[in-house]
């Protein structure tokens, strides 16, 4: 029987951050993780997918250099890829980061138990580690159990039907890949496998790709998909999948009601994620739910005293950085600080080609809130740094949404190559309550992509220089 001040369930970006911070505060802390430290983000999400996307991009660049070549670089013969070795490289990154998390936890004096925690009441759980069982009783419990890929009814995972987890561990590039669901996970992986040489077909039930982002932002991605030869069926559904030896035959009903057979080596189902609320005794803890999620307040408190919940378990957005911010806050609350979760906005990034980022209100959101926004954008085609690294030809831009009366920046979005690295500045502007004049009055280094942000705000003020 272990008695502890703080018990953290789940070693993902929510849980491990909470545990490290709790450890730094001198709180007696135990973290339970059934799989590997790092969670979905590190082991089978953000990090491995970005590694695969990077490798695919590099491979694609080289492939395009064959023959006529690009910017004067020519390869005599087509490059080849050994996906096994790519995966080993990816695993190396994951191992290094996961090991790093372990070191940080150890340095913070957090005790890590490997096993599956099952709760018998809100403050007591049993951890099965192989043959042994250990009971833990804690004063504070932080639930950071995370989420799993959602399955489609009739299209359960198994055989050729895979989730993002398996897609990130394939040992060879599938010749034909059918992606069901054109959200950011499906498009990121679909794009990567297209670049690696797969024939990719994407099925989306809604009328558009990336339904959480507005159309001007997603149009450049859609154009890339078309140019790259990805078959896109919008407003279409998968009627049936017949599993064969190492392959699948899907029946797709298109928007026009046409029944279309699609053969694929792998069917990747990316229709969202669902919180992991089953199989660990949540029902014995008597916490209130909010739909499929655990209900929390602005301090991540559940309805049960001293039981806290963070990350994917508590709702959208299911993003690692949200979980980490909540975890850090909860640890400090337990340590006696006065805190609340009150970000102005949470940034989101989509690593498609080109990349999309968003923070705060879109023009539509701002209009819906009666803000009468002023919206301007600045194209990367007019940015020197973008052109000098082949990032100016994908119709990318930075868009700024601000209040027309006091010029407060309400939202910033961008689409274009490498824009994921710009989101930090956008988020800082929103959190600091920047006005258009603040950004316009900040000297942005030349030549960088960030100049596009400054130019967009200058344009809002009627003072743009480079357009």
């Amino acid at each position: 029987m272990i008695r502890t001040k703080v018990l953290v369930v789940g070693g993902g970006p929510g849980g491990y951050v909470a545990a490290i911070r709790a450890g730094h505060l001198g709180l007696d802390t135990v973290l339970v993780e059934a799989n590997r430290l790092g969670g979905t983000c590190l082991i089978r999400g953000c990090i491995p997918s970005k590694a695969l996307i990077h490798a695919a991009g590099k491979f694609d660049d080289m492939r395009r250099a064959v023959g006529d070549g690009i910017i004067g670089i020519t390869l005599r013969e087509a490059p080849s890829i050994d996906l096994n070795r790519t995966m080993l490289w990816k695993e190396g990154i994951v191992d290094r980061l996961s090991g790093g998390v372990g070191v940080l936890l150890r340095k913070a004096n957090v005790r890590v138990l490997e096993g599956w925690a099952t709760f018998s009441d809100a403050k007591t759980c049993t951890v099965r580690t192989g043959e042994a069982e250990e009971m833990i009783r804690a004063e504070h419990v932080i639930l950071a159990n995370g989420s799993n890929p959602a399955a489609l009814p009739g299209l359960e995972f198994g055989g050729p039907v895979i989730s993002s987890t398996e897609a990130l561990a394939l040992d060879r590039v599938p010749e034909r890949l059918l992606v069901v669901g054109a959200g950011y996970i499906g498009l990121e992986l679909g794009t990567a496998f297209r670049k690696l040489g797969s024939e990719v077909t994407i099925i989306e039930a809604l009328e558009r790709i990336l339904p959480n982002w507005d159309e001007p932002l997603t149009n450049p991605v859609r154009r890339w998909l078309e140019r790259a030869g990805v078959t896109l069926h919008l407003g279409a559904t998968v009627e049936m999948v017949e599993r064969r030896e190492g392959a699948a035959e899907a029946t797709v009903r298109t928007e026009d009601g046409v029944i279309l057979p699609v053969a694929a080596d792998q069917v990747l189902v990316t229709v969202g994620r669902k919180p992991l609320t089953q199989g660990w005794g949540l029902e014995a803890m008597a916490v209130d739910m909010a739909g499929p999620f655990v209900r929390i307040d602005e301090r991540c408190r559940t309805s049960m005293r001293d039981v806290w919940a963070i990350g994917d378990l508590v709702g959208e957005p299911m993003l690692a950085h949200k979980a980490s911010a909540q975890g850090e806050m909860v640890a400090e609350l337990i340590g006696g600080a006065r805190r609340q979760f009150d970000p102005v906005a949470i940034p989101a990034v989509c690593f498609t080609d080109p990349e999309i980022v968003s923070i705060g209100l879109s023009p539509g959101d701002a209009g819906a809130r009666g803000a009468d926004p002023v919206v301007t954008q600045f194209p990367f085609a007019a940015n020197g740094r973008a052109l000098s690294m082949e990032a100016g030809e994908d119709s990318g831009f930075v868009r700024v949404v601000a209040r027309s009366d006091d010029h407060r920046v309400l939202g910033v979005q961008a689409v274009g190559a490498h824009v994921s690295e710009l989101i930090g500045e956008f988020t800082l502007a929103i959190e600091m309550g920047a006005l258009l004049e603040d950004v316009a009055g900040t000297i942005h280094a030349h030549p960088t992509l960030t100049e596009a942000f400054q130019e967009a705000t200058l344009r809002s003020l009627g003072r743009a220089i480079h357009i």
Partner: protein
Amino acid sequence: MGRFVFNLPDVGEGIAEAEVVSWHVAVGSAVAEDDPLVDVMTDKATVEIPSPRAGRVLAITGGPGDKVRVGAELLVLDVENDEVTLLHDEAAAPGAAVAPLAAPTIPTPAASAGPLLTVAKARRTPQTSGREKIEAAVASARPTGAKPLASPAVRRRAHELGIALQFIPGTGPAGRIGHADLDAYIASGGSAAVAASRPAGSARLERIEAIKIIGLRRRIAERMQESKRRIPHYSYVEELDVTTLEELRAHLNARHGADRPRLTLLPFLIRALVCAVPRFPQVNALFDDETGIVRRHAALHIGIATQTPQGLMVPVVRHAEALDLWEVASEISRLAAATREGTAARDELSGSTLTITSLGPIGGIVTTPVINYPEVAIIGVNRIVERPVARGGQIVIRKMMNLSSSFDHRVVDGWEAAQFVQELKGLLEQPASLFVE
């Protein structure tokens, strides 16, 4: 000259943190040894902390309402000579400097030695510190419902100070609130430059008084919230004919008025509880709902809800089962006086097993008392009135009184509570039975 870091000393057994009530010194003040520095509140007693040394105040931690951990930095003094053992050097300071979050540090020998505490002195909380009055005209620059504009650091600092940004006028662009605005707001006692926008004459009043709930008020708020959130309350009201009891009370007071304390109804009620509780042990109990254990107490420690200038307090008549009527009466009046004057010791204000709440002559017809968590019952006394009642077919005037009691339905069923109150009714209506074994 040297820096002397004074950590909050251990102010009582089992106390991990104390709440700042008011400072007697400010940054820059000169203090002599033993000068009062600050009043802090623990549980329900206010403690004055004197200065262990003479010097000039360099820094203080926390304002009224802030909690400071025992062992965390309370203030820094600039002291005359540099005695190494008494000083934290710069290298040792960082751990203690972040007072609200730092792990408790061990008080320096200087901090823990000597008679530092004067527990529960007859010091009244100054009027201004208990209720920090914040006046703000809502009709400031910010449109109603708009979120105040402030950076994360300003938001966090304001939240830690318990200040709602809505009330702070922002002087930055677009009404942005900066650290300077927050400082100005605090310095002005929370009434920053909005006086000009106040309506003149006898126009409609738009002013809203925002009162920071701190100190005892906050403690009461937390306790009540805790009780109502955790305990499924139900109340049971019964009517008592106290004519005979009142006759007995008047008789005893007339007979012993000169040499013994005056008897109110409470000693009789407590006597009735002493008689009834052995048959109903489930009501004289504390329910630890974390571990699911009810602890039934043989001793009867009666909490007496008492209104004080600062708010509600509950002094405790200990071992009521071992006291006679007059001992109970004198103990109640002694505790009530001590509590109102703020001289009650901490253990006189805790440890009750069952609580009585009585509003005396303004006791109303019915009350729905809130249980003093983790107790499981509370007995409420309503006022005594003469009422016509039917007795044997005749209308007679009797002295009637209601008893309104609340119980924790998790551990006391309605049937049991009713039986218990009926037992009290029987005892009080036939007061002779109070004194029959």
